[in-house]
Each structure stands twice: as C-alpha cells, then as structure tokens.
C-alpha cells in the first residue's frame, strides 16, 4: 500500500515536470546551395524558410531550416559544409551540388548516418540521394529552340552561348536546343561560345560572334552571364537586338532580364522556379522524414516561359515576392 502511494507520488512529480502543452517534436532540415549570396539562391532560401514556417504552423513538428552553403561555388568547401551537417545530426539535407563527383561521397556518408538526402537544381546522380528536384533542362533547351526558330521564321544563322564546358545542366540545355533546330533545315548554328560563367568573358564572346557573323539572326544564352553587364557593354548585340535584327532567347528570369525583354532586347526567357528550389525541397524532405514518402528519382519543377505577353505578370511576381500564381500564357 505504502509502496503504491509512493509510486503514485513519484508519478505526480514526474507529470508536473513534463510540459503541460502537447509534445512538439523538432525537425531540422538543411538547405545547401552552391554558394552564398547569389540572388537566385537567396530567393530559394526564402522559399525554404517560408515553407518551414507554414509547416510549423500546420503540423505536429516545429520545422527549422538551416539555409547554408559554401561562400563561393567550391566543391571542396561544400564537402566540409555537408560533413558539418552530418555531425550536427540534422533530420534531412537538400543540396545543390557544385560537382557531381565530389558531392557523392558526403551524400553517401549522410545516408549511412541515417539522414535522407535529396538534390535540387544540380544533381549527383551516382549518389544515394532519394530524389532530384529540378527543371528538365533538356526539355527547356527544346522549348528555347522552338521559341527562337519561331522568332526568326525558321531560317538564318544562330549562335549559342554556354558556361563552363562539361557542366551537365548546361550541356543538356544546349543539346535540347540543337535537337530542336535540327528539324529546321534553313537554320544553321554557326558558333558556340563559352563564357566560363564569367560576365566579361560572356560579353566578349557575344561581341566576337556578332562581329564575325554580321548576318546572325538569333542567339540562345544557356545562362544569363552577359546580360548582367549594363547597356553599352555589348554595342553590336544591343543595336542588333533593339532593331530586331537579332532575336535572343535566354535562360533565367531575373528582374534585369525582364526589363531587357520589356524594352525589346530579348524575345523570350525560360525561367526556373528559384522559389520552388527551397519551397518544394523543404516539402519533399518533410514528407520523406515525417511520412517516409517514396519519391521518383526525378521531380520536375516545371518552367516559366516569359515573353512580351506575360512579362508584366512576372515583373509583378518579383515585386511582390509571390510566385504562387500561375503565369498567363506566353
């Protein structure tokens, strides 16, 4: 009898010590970008934090997102960042890899430590990541080819600007572009220049091609590099673009590119869902950790196609930071 009283007393003490509110579990998810500070990645981080807030408000978990990355787009530094996250025992990692090979080992180490890992935007296909969330770069390249072919009425010389030779996503974009244009016998691709993901190299490449091929009709920029430069840096391209002699389709939909499109320099832009890189990644990780959901190896984020017909809507989306509403048709 006395023993039971003692036990009851003990239970009461223990119960008083425990929090009165229903128990909330903490879920810590890491969102790792290629580098810190890139405006595009900042956008993704905001998406990740937004989804974390929404999930915390709705669900049983307090979802905390650690948005981090290497200071510069460096594969070795990124490995260190990933190893730190494994040591911190986070609940899940979403990473955009600087190098598919260098990324594989740390991803596998995390998985071995029981941390599910997914990739976004830039994959490590050989690793044990459970899914890859990205735009379908090949399909986007095909769309770019179609848009450019239509803009130049299916004939003329065109050129391609790409980044670092060997970058998988850029190579897929260019391959899609080339495959589409192969169906147009009157279009020839006269030059493919590399920018090394460098603004000044991109500007010089574009101007060199404009000079070498005075009858050029179209450009495909697989990335936005030369467009970062202000007006006056590419006099030949600017003049040809403004007068409509040269049509340009470019990847990405940053505000300054939208401005160039509105002012008539660009024909079309193909946008990735930067916001979704964070927003959708956090949702995917959450489902994986909380519900053990099984995902296909590739999740297509879809793409934004921006032309003069819907550029205003895209500009508004940037101004209000709200990318949830679908764009009007291009």
């Amino acid at each position, binding site marked *: 009898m006395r023993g039971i009283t003692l036990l009851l007393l003990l239970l009461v003490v223990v119960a008083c010590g425990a929090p009165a509110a229903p128990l909330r579990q903490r879920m810590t998810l890491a969102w790792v970008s290629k580098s810190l*500070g890139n405006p595009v990645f900042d956008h993704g981080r905001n998406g990740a934090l937004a989804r974390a807030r929404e999930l915390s408000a709705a669900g049983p978990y307090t979802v905390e997102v650690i948005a981090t990355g290497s200071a510069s787009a460096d594969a070795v530094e990124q490995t260190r960042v990933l190893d730190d996250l494994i040591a911190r025992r986070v609940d899940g990692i979403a990473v955009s890899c600087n190098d598919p090979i260098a990324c594989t080992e740390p991803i596998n180490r995390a998985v071995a430590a029981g941390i599910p890992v997914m990739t976004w935007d830039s994959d490590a296909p050989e690793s044990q990541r459970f899914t890859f969330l990205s735009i379908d770069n090949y399909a986007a390249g095909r769309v770019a080819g179609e848009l450019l072919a239509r803009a130049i009425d299916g004939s003329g010389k065109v050129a391609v600007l790409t980044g670092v030779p060997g970058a998988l996503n850029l190579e897929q974009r260019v391959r899609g572009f080339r495959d589409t244009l192969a169906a147009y016998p009157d279009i020839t691709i006269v030059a493919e220049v590399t920018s090394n993901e460098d603004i000044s190299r991109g500007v010089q490449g574009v101007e060199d091609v404009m000079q070498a091929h005075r009858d050029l009709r179209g450009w495909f920029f697989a990335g936005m590099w030369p467009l970062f430069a202000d007006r006056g840096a590419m006099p030949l391209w600017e003049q040809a673009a403004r007068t409509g002699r040269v049509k340009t389709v470019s990847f990405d939909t940053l505000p300054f590119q939208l401005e160039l499109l509105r002012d008539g320099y660009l024909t079309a832009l193909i946008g990735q869902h930067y916001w979704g890189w964070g927003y959708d990644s956090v949702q995917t990780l959450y489902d994986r950790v909380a519900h053990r959901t099984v995902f296909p190896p590739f999740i297509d984020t879809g793409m934004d196609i921006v032309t003069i017909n819907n550029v205003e809507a895209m500009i508004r989306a940037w101004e209000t930071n709200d990318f949830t509403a679908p764009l009007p048709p291009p």
Partner: protein
Amino acid sequence: MDKRATRIGLGQRQARSVARLSRQSWRALASRQEIIILACLVVAALVIGLWNPNFYQATNLLNLARGVSWFAVAALGVSMVILVGGIDLSVGAVMALAGVLCASALHAGLPVPLAILAGVAGGLGVGFLNGVLVARLGLPPFIVTLGTMGLVRGVTVGITNGAPLRDLPPHFRALGQHDLYLGPLSVPLSLVIMALLAVLVSLLLDRTILGRYIYTVGRDEQALRLVGVPAASVKITVYVLSGALAACSGVLMTAWLGVAAPTAAEGYELEIIAAAVIGGASLFGGEGGVLGVVLGTTLMLVVRNGFVFLGLPTYLQSGAIGAMILTVVLMDHLWRRRLARG
C-alpha cells in the same frame, strides 16, 4: 655616418653600372622577343582576316582594343613583379575587389574620382601586404600571393554578400565604354588610359634609378644588397605597383561592363601572367619590357577573337594559349643557352 653615406653613394653607382650592363644584353634579347611576337601578331591577323574579312572592320578593332586595354594594365604590373623574380597570383582577386570597392563608393554617392581612388587604394593595400610578406619576411611569393588571392576573394564576396553591383552612373561607365575621336580615328578611352599607364611604367623602368634596381634585383639580388641598395624596399614597391595596376585594370573592366561582380576576373591571374610571359617577361627574372607586355596581351586577345572568326570551338582556346606559353618559354630557354655558350 659619412662613411655610410659614401658607401651607399658608391654602391648606387656600382649598382647603376651593373644595371646598365645588364640592360644592354637585355635589350638585345627583349627586342628579339618583341619582334617575334609582332611577327606572330601579323601572321595571326593575316590568317584570320583572309578567312573572315570582318576581322578588319573598325568595330572589331575597337572591340579588340577595348579588351586589350584593361587586360594589359594588369599585365604591366605583373610583368614588373616577374622582373624582380616574383609572381603575383592575387591580381584577379584584386581586380574584383577594386571593382566592388569602386562600385560601393559610387552607390554611397561618392564622386567618380574618389570612387576610383577607393578602388585603387584597395589594390595598393593588398600589394603592400604581398610585398612585406615576400620581401621582409622572405616568404615564397607563390605561396604569399596564393594566400592573398583567397583572402581578397573572400573579403570581396563578403562585402557584396555575393551579389553583383549594378546601376553605376553613366559618366563612370563612360571610362570603359566611350571612344575618343582623334581626327578620323576613334580610339577607346580605356585604350588611351592604358597607353598613358604604359608610358609611365616604361619611364619608371627606363629612366629612373628605381627602374634599374628593379631589373637588377631580378638578375642578381645579392649584388644589389652587397652594394647597399635596399632590395627589400625595391621589391615592396613593385608589389604595391602591381596591386595598384591590377586595381586600375579592375576599375576599367567594371566601367566597361557596368557591373561589379565579386566573382569577376576569377582565374584571370593565369592569363595575365601568360600575357606578360608571352610578351617577354622571363619567369627567371630580370627581363621584360612594356612594349612586349602590350604586344603579348594583344596576341592573346587576337588569338581568342580569332577562334570565333575561324569558327573553331572556343573550348580549345585555353589549349592554344597554353601551347603559346610553352613555345615562348622554350624559345626563351634555347636562346639563353645559346647566349651562355657565347
């Protein structure tokens, strides 16, 4: 006190004569290399122009001149460092730092000349750090400037949070974009600035005692020290000048592009060193001239430009430039062996 003064006076006279002697044989060598580079340039221009006559159009020459201008400014500085037997790997990072400092100053509302000074000051600071670490502490220049390259790049990314700075005032951009009209000729303003700086560097090297010391440090530092010339100060000055010229180059590049990116000029240090080496600056020190550096830079840009005109894949460019460096170094080496044999 008196004795010391005489010793220095005597030493300087000796150093001067050493320098003069070495300069004569250098002249023979350098002029030879400059002529070779000039010949290469003429051949390259002929071949490219035959294949695609658009190469000779005024717009392309302007385009080339604009590209050469800021690139050569940085190469001038590096060639001086090579003259004293050193190397400066931090120039690319300094270019980005100078651009970002200058753009930040402009965003803060500073007038253009002050903003440019802010950028150049950054280069001076990094150059001084390099110089002190190399000359006073005797650390290997390759390691020192490799370290400052990373340090400066990190600081630059930190200042900007990684984002490029745009919306620079038009009268700043004019520095890199405008052309001057000299009669019927239109010349990019940046090329005129480069020419002015090249003349200044040339005067410094050819007409001042410091210039002679710079050549002598690279050839025989021990001799200079023995006769009482502060070789360390000479070296520090050279690293400071290299930093300042790299900063000028970065400011010009920023003005031309109208954007200062923290990632700008990444990897340019190797191309800048290559331009200086192709132009005749010997990595063994003590040799090189301003004209050679400008010609070397021009040759590199013409080759790159030529790839597009000839329709060759651009990813072969770095291979071609690498082959050019090896050829020049090999020629330099063979020529020295012949000289040594008499």
